[in-house]
């Protein structure tokens, strides 16, 4: 039975977001029976308690063997064999960003095999991590009509392309027959020819009213933004133009923003519903619209003093209220509401069911939410998804963050150098499309972020993306840098 409300499983943020791609990878590439006894991480720096984690990056004597495997698939030194040196070079080239405080480092998750070199258990050092693939597939499903595919399956198309390109193709084969040999099913071919989706990673069904509501009214939501961005990025137009590592970085950026903004949207959704049910002043149609399309930006960016520009506390507060409202609303609806065909109808039902005690509960949720591990995980997920990561070395800078910690108390909207590039690119159907400032504004607005035009213009100018500005305003053309064919 489908849920009454969009069913987003509770998240937890991995210190290496490459794990998000790895979760998608392991959801469409079957694991060998018994291959999941240990979690996987590419490089481990510290021991973990209560969970077995296996390092997949070759070390010590494994290097020579990895070098021999590489050699057998054509990646070898000309002249005298230097197995260890070549293996070391290849292994280092697959390093992902090293987080400052993490217990391990992920691989860069390019192609298919390198994406399989870690999993959520290893990435989070947790025995029961969230099912990221299911969560991402659900966000994707909520973003548009059912077309019989999932976010993970779309990823597979792009990853397969990169995996087929030299020199990555040889490295992929060496990893599949070496490091990953015991983890993959022997009967499956390498490279895999089609995605085989795990049942547990299938998306939750959208509520019956969802798609009709979204389509009828043309609502632009973070789900729709993610769906459009992911479909574009995974299409040949984009994945054939971007280098493998750049594509993976962009994909992680889209995943991070998709995750963060859908949970911010969810918080706003339940807050609006709770407020409307509690007050009854607003008609249910209007309330439904405000719940679906937030009236205020989900990240309340504005210019001002250091403290006025802080968005950290308002994000945390919105999530706290939203979670409390969600719990109160779920309690109120109970087992009812499965047959409703519109959100307004659902609001009417909630209003009918709300007695004095429920009103008090909603009022409490709207004012004084209590803390808990669910809330902590949620706030961390949103915060760290958007925040530029603190990294161990200068070469590992996170260029894709949207927020930056300016001091211990304040977090500002200070996008990394490549943030605006990804945002602008995802507003363009193809790399060589004509895209204008208005398109970028519209796309970012769907995500739930509504900065002033001068903020976007400054970011675009800083990134050198403005191709012309004779008209100013939304007509400014953006040059994505890929040429016009």
């Amino acid at each position: 039975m489908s849920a009454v409300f969009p069913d987003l499983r509770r998240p937890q943020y991995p210190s290496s977001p490459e794990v998000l791609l790895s979760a998608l990878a392991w959801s469409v590439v079957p694991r060998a029976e018994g291959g999941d006894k240990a979690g996987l991480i590419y490089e481990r720096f510290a021991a973990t308690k209560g969970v077995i984690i296996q390092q997949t990056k070759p070390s010590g004597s494994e290097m020579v063997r990895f070098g021999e495997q590489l050699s057998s698939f054509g990646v070898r030194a000309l002249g005298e064999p230097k197995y260890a040196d070549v293996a070391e070079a290849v292994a280092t080239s697959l390093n992902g960003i090293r987080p400052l405080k993490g217990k391990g480092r992920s691989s860069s998750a390019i192609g298919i095999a390198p994406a399989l070199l870690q999993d959520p258990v290893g990435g989070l050092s947790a025995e029961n991590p969230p099912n990221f693939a299911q969560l991402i597939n659900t966000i994707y499903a909520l973003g548009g009509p059912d077309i019989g595919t999932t976010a993970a399956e779309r990823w597979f198309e792009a990853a397969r392309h990169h995996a087929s390109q030299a020199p990555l193709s040889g490295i992929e084969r060496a990893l599949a027959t070496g490091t990953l040999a015991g983890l993959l099913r022997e009967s499956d071919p390498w490279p895999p020819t089609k995605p085989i989706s795990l049942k547990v990673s299938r998306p939750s069904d959208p509520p019956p009213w969802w798609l009709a509501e979204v389509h009828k009214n043309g609502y632009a939501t973070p789900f729709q933004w993610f769906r459009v961005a992911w479909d574009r990025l995974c299409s040949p137009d984009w994945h054939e133009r971007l280098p493998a590592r750049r594509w993976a970085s962009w994909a992680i950026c889209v995943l991070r923003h998709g995750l963060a903004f859908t949970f911010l949207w969810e918080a706003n959704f339940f807050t609006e519903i709770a407020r409307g049910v509690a007050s009854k002043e607003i008609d249910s149609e209007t309330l439904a619209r405000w719940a679906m399309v937030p009236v205020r930006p989900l990240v309340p960016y504005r210019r001002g003093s250091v403290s006025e520009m802080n968005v950290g506390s308002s994000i945390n507060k919105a999530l706290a209220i939203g979670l409390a409202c969600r719990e109160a609303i779920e309690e109120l609806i109970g087992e009812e509401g499965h047959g409703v065909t519109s959100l307004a109808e659902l609001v009417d039902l909630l209003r009918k069911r709300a007695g004095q005690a429920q009103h008090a509960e909603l009022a409490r949720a709207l004012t004084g939410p209590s803390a808990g591990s669910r809330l902590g995980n949620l706030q961390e997920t949103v915060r760290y998804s958007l925040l530029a990561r603190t990294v161990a070395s200068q070469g590992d800078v996170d260029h894709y963050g949207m927020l930056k910690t300016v001091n211990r108390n304040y977090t500002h909207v200070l996008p990394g150098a490549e943030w605006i590039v990804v945002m602008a690119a995802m507003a363009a159907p193809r790399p060589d499309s004509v895209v204008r400032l208005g398109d970028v504004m519209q796309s970012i607005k769907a995500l739930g972020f509504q900065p002033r035009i001068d903020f976007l213009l400054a970011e675009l100018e800083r990134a050198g993306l403005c191709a012309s500005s004779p008209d100013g305003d939304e007509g400014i053309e953006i040059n994505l840098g890929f040429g016009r064919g």
Partner: protein
Amino acid sequence: MNAIERLQMRAFGGEDVAARPDAADDDWWPKGPLLPGVTELIGDLAQRPFASDGLNIYFLLGGAGNGKSFAARALAMRLAIDLQGSGELARRKYERSVDGADVVILNDATIANRAEYKEKQSVALAADIAEWTHRSATKPVIAFCCVNRGIIVDELRALETVQGVSSEAAKRLLRWIAGVAESVAEGVEVPPGDFRPPLLLGSHYRESSSTIDGTKVRAFALSVDSTSIVSRSKQGPKKSAARELMAEVVALCLPDAQKRDPNCPILANLINLQSAETVDAWAGILEGAEVASGRYFSYRDLWALIALTVVGPRVAEATSGAQGAVGGVDALLHRHSQASNATERLEALLGLSQHRLSCALYRAPVPREDGLRVEYPPGTPFHGGLILVDPAVWGGRDTEAIESAMAEVALGGRPSAVLRTQGHPLSTLWTPFDDALEQALLEEANSPGCMDGHRRGLISWYSAYLIRLTSLATGNIGNKAAIQVLEECRVACKLGPALPPSAIDTGLRKLLLPDHGRAGDHKVMMRAFAARAEPLDGDADEALPTLAEVIHVGSLSMRLRQRNGRVVLECHIAGQDRTVGELTLDLPLVREALAWSEGKSGQTDASIYIEPRLERCRASSLSAMPASFKRLVSATTSGHVELAQ
């Protein structure tokens, strides 16, 4: 109201700021010429060379203040259509019947009336085109539309959601204007010569015709914002709309200015601007600012610039009860005349200095007594370019002589006296105001009570004041070398793709493919599968073997192309035509390329913003490069070993 006050009103919000097709011109004001192609287009419409059928639609495209409404009024006059008396408010559409055809003049800057357009308000232009197409099946329609491209983008987006505008012609025309479609129709193009040979007005003009839904549709689009009104025209070496308008305004304002206080900076400005050489230098500075910002000034910008140069900024000094810039100047002149000591006198003169043409143009700050606080007058969109050519910030040619003359202050002398004795160009612009300012400033700086920090601040500011003023005599601007190269690039590719000029060719290539000598001459070694497409440069962390790709720098070719007024650097694989990477060639990038040839690459103020763009272009270009152009190596600091693939 005298001429100076009228000028101030025009620049800062008077009735003449936004033109209306139905509002009569004030003949007192001089008029600039119509932008290139507009006269020809109006003539084409007036002659109506096409058969009397279908929809013939003319678009003037461009941002606000480029003279579109002025052109619409010129068209109405040509067709003897009386648009006046249409009401107090600007209207969106003016319709008249002329020789059996419906002529519609549409001013899209005016927001469509909600009552008239209802739910189609957000797609008003598309709705209008749909209606004209429908009407033209029985009676020819000629439409002349003044349109901002931003509105087209909005409408195209809104058309995806708004129901009720199903006209194919409207959608195709909007896509064509926006540059998304090459022609107004696919596969049913009517031969161009069906009514006359195509007009050859330049790259800023397009025309297309076809039959859509059974109706003949002819579309003509002219961009009115893709030519400069400040650069010299081909008609003569010193002629441009900016120069001519400024000269005429000076002639109008000077009689009123001569009645003002001898210490008035407005009078000083007009005295200076009487000289054709000063006007020429002023226009040259604007030309440099256009090149630097990559954006042409509109007529509205130009009027504001003329007013700014003559009168100064509107709110340069907080004054009690004073109205506008002229009122502010009057209040400051009064304060100056009433000053009881040197400090008060200097404060008033520093406030007045913001109205001096050079300070106003470059938006010079004013130092204050506490030594730390500096006040900037309000900025405008066009200051973005002017700030980039400020000789006091970016080092003009006149800097050295002025800085040596400033040594005179320590000896109790006057820098202006030294410069004027040397025949320095500053002499031609020196006025009683400058004399009073220098005297008051030196008196304050040399007084025993002047704190050291304040004294240094005053002297430094005054040095910048003289440099800025001198630029109005010599035309020398900051960043001149980079601006010249950028202009050279723009000229080189005006008629089509061109190679980068030799002055920056090597610099650009080295920036894109930095060769650190690790892989041999003319080869660059790039880390494989790296987050950033950056070359290996022998850092300590590369002691471990690193997987890298070696590429010959000659594998990548570059060419320049103009697109929508900006110069774009396109990268393509040697021997292939397809563009694989692009960079907008702007002033910071040219400066970075020039800095490379001086061995200072990475040291310009914009390096931090340039590098991500270069890296992105590099990544895109190298990604498209066939494997046969790359050699895979395992590199260490001691060398590299080539790998088979």
